[in-house]
């Protein structure tokens, strides 16, 4: 299936893209995250949180073709 991946801030600088359509066989977030990290090994040394469909996710949730997966660097609001 195809999922949408978003990168922000310093992460987008490392991946040199802010949005990506990825064809994946991963059915769960952890597998998918590893796939992305293998694609962009420099991300492995960076700190980030993941949001699925605009919600921060810490568990290994299942993915669907409608999943929008965002890699978020440390927040700097205020």
């Amino acid at each position, binding site marked *: 299936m195809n999922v949408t991946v978003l990168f*922000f*801030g310093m992460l987008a600088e490392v991946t040199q893209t802010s949005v990506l359509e990825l064809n994946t066989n991963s059915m769960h977030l952890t597998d998918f995250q590893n796939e992305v990290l293998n694609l962009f090994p420099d991300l492995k040394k960076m700190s980030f949180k993941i949001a699925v469909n605009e919600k921060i996710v810490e568990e290994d949730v299942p993915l669907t073709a409608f999943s929008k997966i965002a890699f978020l660097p440390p927040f*700097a*609001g*205020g």
Partner: protein
Amino acid sequence: MKKSLYTGAITPQKIADSIAYHQTKTNIGAHDIFLGQVRADEVNGKKIAAIDYSCYEEMAEKILHKIREATFEKFDLTCLHIYHSTGMVKAGELCLFVFTSSRHRKMAMDACRFIVEEIKLKVPVFGKEIFEDHTHQWKVNT
């Protein structure tokens, strides 16, 4: 949904207008205001000239809306306004404006502090600190 993200620096005029607008709401007895300002920090002898704010817009608006709702639930407020800049804000300019109003001071003050802490913690906003020599580094909240 009320929008909280604001393009560019928040002007002192906008804040003054906002205060003036509340003078007709005579059930208010106390306002509290928090203003975030961009600091010209020096890092390794280089000075920060501006912060270029970017964000995950849909998620940021959603979370700011949730913070609004949580604040109204927790505190007895009459009025609440939150504005956070996106894009370029120069050192000395304002990037965050939180304005709480209530009948008495305690609610307005407690709510204002609560909102600012929630914003720092939960809203996906990213800050590219631009130095005077046009190099940059990324801001991380402490």
